[in-house]
């Protein structure tokens, strides 16, 4: 039976991990590649890098990251952030990345998802969605790192993205992100039951029971985790042992 995946997420700016991670004894804990290799050894199932470099340098740093990671990390990894064209995608995949994650440019240019899925296969195209509950009783899609509202229903967008050829949805709850109160069970459940591709839940993990809840009650296939691991609150092994004890199939 397929296992539920635990995926540490590393935010990267100009080739460095945002918020250096102090507790781990690495030669350079600010190096995303060193950190990803550490998480590979610790038992992470995949790694997601989100590049937030806000400049024209972005593409170069992302390609370099893909390339260096492939030499040291032997689990699948996804790169997202500022990817706008088929050429960007081709270059990153060629360097060894397994998947690319696209958010704003997927929403604004549906043909990018369609063409990318056609050329490279759905399995390497992740559509990332940032969603926020709005008073009109649905979750609204936001673009540009949560700055631009669209008026679009996130569940509808997820369904469309699947039709366009997305192989996976990376779903971030803007309401829960940074709160440590737990993932958005309702949002994740709504998207997960509307699509037939894997959904990675993101935003809000503060303790291990949150991981269990979103997997058990919202049907998430994978969980994106940042601070719980980055600040040494738990190791990946502890998280997996906990989930296994709760009856969830994980790779240990």
């Amino acid at each position, binding site marked *: 039976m397929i296992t539920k995946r635990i995926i540490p997420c590393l935010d990267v700016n100009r080739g460095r991990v945002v918020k250096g991670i102090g507790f781990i004894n690495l030669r350079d804990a600010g190096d995303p590649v060193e950190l990803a290799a550490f998480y590979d050894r610790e038992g992470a199932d995949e790694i997601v890098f989100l590049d937030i470099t806000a400049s024209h340098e972005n593409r170069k740093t992302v390609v370099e990251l893909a390339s260096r990671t492939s030499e040291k990390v032997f689990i*699948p990894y996804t790169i997202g952030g500022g990817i706008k064209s088929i050429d960007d995608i081709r270059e990153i995949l060629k360097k060894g*990345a397994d998947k690319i994650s696209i958010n704003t440019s997927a929403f604004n240019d549906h043909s990018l998802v369609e063409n990318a899925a056609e050329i490279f296969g759905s399995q390497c195209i992740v559509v990332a969605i940032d969603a926020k509950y709005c008073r009109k009783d649905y979750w609204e899609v936001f673009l540009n790192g949560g700055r631009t509202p669209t008026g679009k229903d996130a569940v509808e967008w997820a369904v469309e993205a699947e039709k366009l050829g997305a192989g*996976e949805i990376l779903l971030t709850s803007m309401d829960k992100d940074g709160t440590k109160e737990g993932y958005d069970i309702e949002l994740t459940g709504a998207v997960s039951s509307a699509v037939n591709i894997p959904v990675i839940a993101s935003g809000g993990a503060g303790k291990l029971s949150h991981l269990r809840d979103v997997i058990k009650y919202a049907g998430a296939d994978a969980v994106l985790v940042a601070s719980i691991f980055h600040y040494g609150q738990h190791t990946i092994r502890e998280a997996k042992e906990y989930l296994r004890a709760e009856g969830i199939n994980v790779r240990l």
Partner: protein
Amino acid sequence: MYIALINYGMGNIKSVENSFIKAGAEVRVTSDPMVINRSAAIVLPGVGGFIDAYINLERKGLLKTIYKNINKKPFLGICLGMQLLFEYSLEVRKQRGLGIFKGSVHKISGKVKIPHMGWNQINIIKKNSKILKGIKNSENFYFVHSYHVIPSDYDIVSSTTDYGTDIVASIEKDDIYGFQFHPEKSSLIGQRLIRNFLELTGGI
């Protein structure tokens, strides 16, 4: 002595190359028949469509090269590279494959998400498998695929995985090996398989 890693324009070859380098192998990424002929072992990787893959091998004159070499030295097909060893695939339309093994390639069926993506346990069937030496039953490997092989002769199957139905995870006959999963993405346990393959070549 080196491993020839066949480059025919199909997918993530860099990771395969890096994982063999990490295991201590000398690797040549190549589409040159002469380089392949002189290699100690051959790896056929591959992610993508079956039809494109076959056409690319044909155009580069590599079908002949593979036939010429395949029973003379260890050969490893990974994912699509394993599927290509069978007679035909029904991906998009019927397309012939290398036909080294009898059987065909079909879409994964049942009430499961497609692609089959993630870590799944293998069930070891061939207890004396050379390539799976030292691997415990139920060990997890990383899979990404929408199609799977249905061999006519189940004696070649060395392990399966459960994804709605029993899916062939690895095959083995004489010196020909195939993995449906990705050893290069399966962390330490995947590295073990790559080292096993290198040992079968007499250690490169």
